[in-house]
């Protein structure tokens, strides 16, 4: 038995060392490498779900919603899980199409990734996000999908907040729209990588884009526990989303609607018109009450993915490019509305304010005669009358004299170019800096600009000067000859700032381009306190419970180099335009004794097109509160198309019964009961409603 005992001891040692080995290995796995496995466990066991925050509303100055949210049942498809199935989930889509009463091919198109050669309907967002394919399903349809999840793997139906526009198309270009986040944007956003978030939409234009960060809020996070089949079995951690801030704007939705209606009617009244813009500014604060562009569209088309024909229509020239806000992106020659700048330039250049100036029917600028409108001479005028009657030749003469003083074709040293300098002081030639994306700068041409343009274009011009325009000559030999001559001249002396350029500049023609908003800001500075402001639409950001986050200030960006007396003089002249001047016809019967409207018409020639119709105005003339600028592209004369539209806006603001048209004589309720812009932010109560 001794041998057996020995052997038992050997076995016992063996057993003990095996157990010790287990303990050592357990120490290694659980304690030494524990953290590593904890991480691996979290990764296999949990899925992070981004809970989108409710996007903030956009309110008007009275607290009326311009954009709000409403909940909808949205059906989404997760493409990654479809791709993992046999036949890329063709059968699932087939069944889904039946439930939703759609064509399977349509669903397939909508979940394709957009890319070169793949146009809408397609999915522009991240491929890892569920793709919303129907954003307004009925409860019954949603239940059909949710109750038979085994038949619809990768398909979800959930309640989501979508954007709603109570004013339908009102302010469409101002408000902008939302689009799904792109993959690049998703990757640029660090912090958390959205595993799947139903609606990760980003503001793409307008206020939605500029105030995207504030409106968006902070998305929440829900870390769910899943089992090995991916079924959710519990919530491990939850961070509630913080809803986005509410943006209160200075837009008055009533004034906005009136402005848009006036533009639409103006477009109708001028058969050649292809676009229009209207701006209403608060003179004292520089805030925007209305910013309209025609043609417009209903931003609701963006909600839930836009269809290809709809998208193409919005982009097409035939529909008038309704996505583009002509008020901030449209660049047009301002015509006579620009004379406020030119007359100021004359004053700064030493022309006396109370002097008398000759207004012949025609003035020789160098070797070329420049005519008044219709070639009518008006004798000797004060600057006051020159503005009221819109005499051109006085400005031609001044511009020509200034051009000569600068050295004419051979400038000596540094040139003064008083007209261009003044135009810049009025804010022309650079973006106003309004809180909207994609604003145009307009153009203030001068000697330097001419030289740069020539540097860029001379090669082509000189080639054309030799070869001519054979492709044009086939249809129109005279036009081809004209173009060849032009190319020849430009090739030879295109760098020269010619006297004709200076003359055209003085009456807002030639190469001068402004946006309607720039013109409105310039007029507001002139008739207001002489300070140039960068207009703002956003007024304040508040929490959904009404707590103030920040008030958006209107920055002063410049001061007009005019004395109070000079400004008052010009304003006084403009105050007679609507009663005795070029806009008298448009304002006939308007109760000037109640509300005096001042302004300046503009009729800008555009080569090969109908004139651009302008009316830049303000009211009340004595203590201006509003600036209203209306522009109708290819609308004809300023007094005929733009001024009547502006009149309609004033009638709406002040509640004045129209003197003609189908609503003639009908009493109107004033859009602004106090006849002035809102001076206080609307009160938002704790429950989010607006105190009225």
């Amino acid at each position, binding site marked *: 038995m001794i041998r057996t005992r020995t052997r038992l001891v050997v076995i016992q040692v063996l057993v003990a060392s095996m157990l010790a080995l287990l303990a050592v290995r357990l120490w290694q*796995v659980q304690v030494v490498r524990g953290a590593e496995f904890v991480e691996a466990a979290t990764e296999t066991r949990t899925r992070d779900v981004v809970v989108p925050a409710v996007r903030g509303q956009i309110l008007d100055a009275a607290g009326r919603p311009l954009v709000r949210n409403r909940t909808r049942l949205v059906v989404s498809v997760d493409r990654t899980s479809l791709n993992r199935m046999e036949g890329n989930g063709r059968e699932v889509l087939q069944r889904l199409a039946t439930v939703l009463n759609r064509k399977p091919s349509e669903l397939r198109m909508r979940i394709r990734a957009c890319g070169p050669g793949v146009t809408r309907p397609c999915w522009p967002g991240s491929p890892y996000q569920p793709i919303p394919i129907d954003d307004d399903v009925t409860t019954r349809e949603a239940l059909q999908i949710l109750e038979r999840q085994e038949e619809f793997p990768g398909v979800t139906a959930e309640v989501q907040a979508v954007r709603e526009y109570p004013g339908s198309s009102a302010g469409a270009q101002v408000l902008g729209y939302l689009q799904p986040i792109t993959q690049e944007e998703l990757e640029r956003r660090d912090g958390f990588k959205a595993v799947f978030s139903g609606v990760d939409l980003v503001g793409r234009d307008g206020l939605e884009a500029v105030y995207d960060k504030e409106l968006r809020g902070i998305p929440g996070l829900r870390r769910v526990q899943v089992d090995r089949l991916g079924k959710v079995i519990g919530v491990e951690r939850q961070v509630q989303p913080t809803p986005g801030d509410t943006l209160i704007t200075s837009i008055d939705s009533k004034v906005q609607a009136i402005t848009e209606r006036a533009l639409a009617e103006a477009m109708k009244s001028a058969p050649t018109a292809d676009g229009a813009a209207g701006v209403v500014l608060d003179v004292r604060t520089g805030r925007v009450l209305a910013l309209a562009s025609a043609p417009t569209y209903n931003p609701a088309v963006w909600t839930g993915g836009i269809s290809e024909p709809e998208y193409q229509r919005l982009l097409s020239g035939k529909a008038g490019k309704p996505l583009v806000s002509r008020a901030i992106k449209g660049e047009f020659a301002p015509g006579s509305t620009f004379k406020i700048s030119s007359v100021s330039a004359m004053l700064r250049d030493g022309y006396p304010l109370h002097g008398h100036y000759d207004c012949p029917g025609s003035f020789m600028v160098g070797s070329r005669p420049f005519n008044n409108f219709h070639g009518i001479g008006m004798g000797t005028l004060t600057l006051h009358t020159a503005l009221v009657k819109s005499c051109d030749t006085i400005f031609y003469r001044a511009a020509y004299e200034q051009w000569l003083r600068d050295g004419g074709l051979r400038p000596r040293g540094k040139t003064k170019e008083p007209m261009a300098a003044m135009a810049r002081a009025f804010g022309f030639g650079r973006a106003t800096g309004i809180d909207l994306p994609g604003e145009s700068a307009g153009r203030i041409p001068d000697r330097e600009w001419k030289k740069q343009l020539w540097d860029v274009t001379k090669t082509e011009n000189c080639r054309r000067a030799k070869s001519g325009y054979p492709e044009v000559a086939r249809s129109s030999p005279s036009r081809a000859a004209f173009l060849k001559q032009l190319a020849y001249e430009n090739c030879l002396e295109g760098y020269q700032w010619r006297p004709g350029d200076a003359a055209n500049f003085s009456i807002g023609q030639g190469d001068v381009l402004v946006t309607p908003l720039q013109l409105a800001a310039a007029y507001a500075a002139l008739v207001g306190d002489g300070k140039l402001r960068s207009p703002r639409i956003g007024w304040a950001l508040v929490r959904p419970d009404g707590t103030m986050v920040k008030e958006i200030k209107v920055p002063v960006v410049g001061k007009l180099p005019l004395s109070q007396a000079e400004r008052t003089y010009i304003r006084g002249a403009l105050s007679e335009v609507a009663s005795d001047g070029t806009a008298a016809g448009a304002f006939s019967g308007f109760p000037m004794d109640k509300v005096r409207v001042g302004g300046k018409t503009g009729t800008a020639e555009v080569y090969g097109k109908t004139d651009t119709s302008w009316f830049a105005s303000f009211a009340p003339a004595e203590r201006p509160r509003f600036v209203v600028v209306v522009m109708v592209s290819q609308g004809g004369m300023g007094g005929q198309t733009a001024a009547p539209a502006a009149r309609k806006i004033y009638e709406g603001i002040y509640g004045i019964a129209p003197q003609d048209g189908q609503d003639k004589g009908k009493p109107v309720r004033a859009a602004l009961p106090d006849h002035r812009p809102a001076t206080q932010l609307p009160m938002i109560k704790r429950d989010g409603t607006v105190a009225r």
Partner: protein
Amino acid sequence: MAMPAGGSFARRAVAASSAVRRMDGVLLVAVAALTVIGTLLVWSSTRTWAPGSTGLVKKHILNVAIGIALTSAAVMVNHRSLRVYAPLVYVVSLIGLVLVITPLGSTVNGAHSWIMLGGGFAFQPSEFAKLGLVLMLAMLLARPVRGTDRPRTLDIGLSLGVAGFTMGLVMLQPDLGTTMVLGVITAGALVIGGVRKRWILGLALLVVCGVVAVWLLDVLEPYQIARFTAFLNPASDPRGVGYNSTQSLIAIGSGGLFGKGLFEGGQTTGRFVPEQHTDFIFTVAGEEFGFLGSVAVVALMGVILLRGMRIARLCDDRFGTLVAGVIVCWLAFQSFVNIGMTIGIMPITGLPLPFVSYGGTATFANMIAIGLLQAIHIREQPF
């Protein structure tokens, strides 16, 4: 002490109570503790999906209760008389193994090793085959050549034949894990039985050659080899054969030092480790009780094994020593392979963890084995 008059019942009761008093208390407590822990782990791992949440743990408790009854019965048996019946026990266990191969057997998880009894009860004959083989080998090797402590050559030959036959039947299922346990039982019996060292070494060499031959001659399917070696590098195929290895390592590793607490293991709740109430139950211990808890399980197992060893050493009877020693070899190997596979140092084979895993037949067999250890202890300990 005055005996109550008459009635053999009373006398037997006294005998039984004195038997209980003379049992190895440490062994008893260790087995009880391990069984309680096992019951909790079975509950934790089945509560999310078992019928009525407690359906399986109730069945497990019933199994344990039957197991305790079988232990008590085994304690009553005098192992000396058991020696006489050993061939009978062995033959009965063989009948079970043969029945499995007939159409009466059923396949569960790829192993054709079950006999369905109806009513949700099933029977796994290979578990009893372990017991049968232990008794049979102990009987054969317990009669030494007169004057020595070496078994007779004939008995060694018979032992190898018996073992080979049993292992062959189990391989037909096929059940590699149990075959390996039977191999270890045989090896243990030969070593404790006093077979010459050179014979043992020769046999070991033969086994090694056999394994190499099986490897080289492509007797096994490639997937079997892959499954067997996956533990060496689970990352090579984490979704396929490496899945079990990877997931059980994650579950145990994430338990850390103190564990996540009973019922709090996310990996367990999510059922990321397959078979976590049977073969992979140790992962539940690792995740929910942490390093301290899993080492406690290993330590309790150690107590059982060392107490078993002590019983074998103290026993004056060759048969008793052999039975106790071989049972320790069996339980030690099975525990080591089971825990080892969950922490990536042993290949994955379908072996339950004794006293902890869910499974009726295994529980019965293990409990009877403990009963036998106690029976030997009662009758062989010096007064």
